[in-house]
């Protein structure tokens, strides 16, 4: 009854406009924190024919690094830094099963066990894989509040408000497969709040938290290499 009265007094379009204006003033923000460690200030070089591969960690029990996030980093680096990057799925298929979640080496020394297999070493050489970047982390949704109901109002539209926070936390570690050493680490934490307001139609205002994290980690990784 009250809702019906509200819709009669104030036109829904005006309500929507006010809500959007309020949200733009207050929310939908993202912030990012980057931490970086380098083993040396010398830039990493890729000789002609050599390439980098970026792989996601998927051994954890409660999360796995999202394949689309790895593709985002790979594409960012390949497109803007002109570095040769092997796509994750192409690499995993080419080296099946040696980098599958169950058997992928978690630390640098045990990778010798895999690289010492002649058939694997031959393929690494053939594809020119020089650096392997392992990315570990995920994006989680936290602190969901509110709700939206659609179709229950007299006008048949949506009514309500919903908000949530997204937290992205990723760490990338660069391995040099030639010298079997760790060349550096980059850690990016990013967070933001998203909102959906339901006034006639649901109006989403989504914080691009994962995209910010992807850009942050890609930019830092590019900084390691001589481009």
């Amino acid at each position, binding site marked *: 009854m009250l809702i019906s009265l509200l819709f009669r007094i104030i036109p829904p379009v005006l309500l929507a406009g006010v809500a959007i204006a309020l949200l733009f003033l207050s929310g939908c923000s993202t912030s990012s924190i980057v931490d970086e460690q380098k083993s040396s200030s010398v830039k990493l070089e890729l000789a002609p024919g050599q390439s980098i591969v970026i792989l996601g960690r998927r051994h954890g029990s*409660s*999360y*796995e690094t*999202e*394949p*689309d996030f790895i593709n985002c980093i790979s594409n960012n680096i390949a497109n803007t830094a002109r570095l040769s990057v092997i796509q994750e799925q192409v690499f*995993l*298929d*080419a*080296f*099946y*099963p*040696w980098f*599958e*979640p*169950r*058997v992928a080496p978690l630390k640098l020394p045990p990778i010798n066990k895999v690289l010492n*297999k*002649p*058939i*694997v070493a031959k*393929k690494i050489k053939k594809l020119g894989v020089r650096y392997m970047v392992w990315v570990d982390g995920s994006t989680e949704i936290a602190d969901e509040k509110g709700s939206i109901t659609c*179709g229950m109002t*007299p*006008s*048949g*539209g949506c009514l309500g408000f919903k908000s949530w926070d997204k937290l992205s936390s990723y760490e990338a570690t660069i391995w040099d497969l030639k010298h079997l050493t760790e060349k550096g680490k980059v850690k990016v934490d990013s967070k933001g709040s998203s909102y959906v307001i339901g006034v006639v139609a649901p109006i989403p205002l989504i914080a691009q938290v994962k995209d910010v994290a992807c850009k942050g980690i890609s930019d830092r990784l590019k900084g390691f290499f001589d481009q």
Partner: protein
Amino acid sequence: MKSISIFFKKNIVLCLIATCLSIQGCSTNVIVAGEYPPALVQILPYNAGLVLNNVFTDYSFTREKDDKKITITLGESQTELLSQIFGDMFLKVSRFQAIPQAGKNDLDLLIVPHIEKLQLSMPDETSINIFEVWIKYKLEIFDHSGILITEWFVSSYGRTQTRFLKSQEAALNQATISALRDAGTQIITGFNEIPKIRDWINQKTEPSDVN
């Protein structure tokens, strides 16, 4: 404004009818479709026989819980996987539908896989928002004279995060493919590690000479 209201009301009625219908006939059917890469593995110089009977090649899993029926048909996909990986692991692989008579062929080994169990977990059943699939296989491995070398149990696991996929079917398909890939990983990396297989390889002084 009145016409907009009528439009929404009509659509709401249609949506409610569709929802009621979908709740009544709530079933999920997945025919697992995946491609498996060739295995990067040193070829073992043996002639192997792979017995894939109809129970295995036509295998379908069904679960009915809380008026929800889920069917996963993975016979074809698991047949493709095992044919692929054993084909890459051995010098020669012959496929059979039933166990051939021992001693009347040039086989060094005969592998008979069975699917023992499949379990799945939906996002609303666990605290983590993912689809999970477990598959347990039993591989019976016989020598050329039909004597059982070992029974090898392989328990594989696959999962998918829901938010990346458009439908429940797509999520279950991907989780099952992931579990099948994991089974392949264990078979390839673990075959030579099984003590009885290792002993058999050590005893086999003269590998068969094919071609």
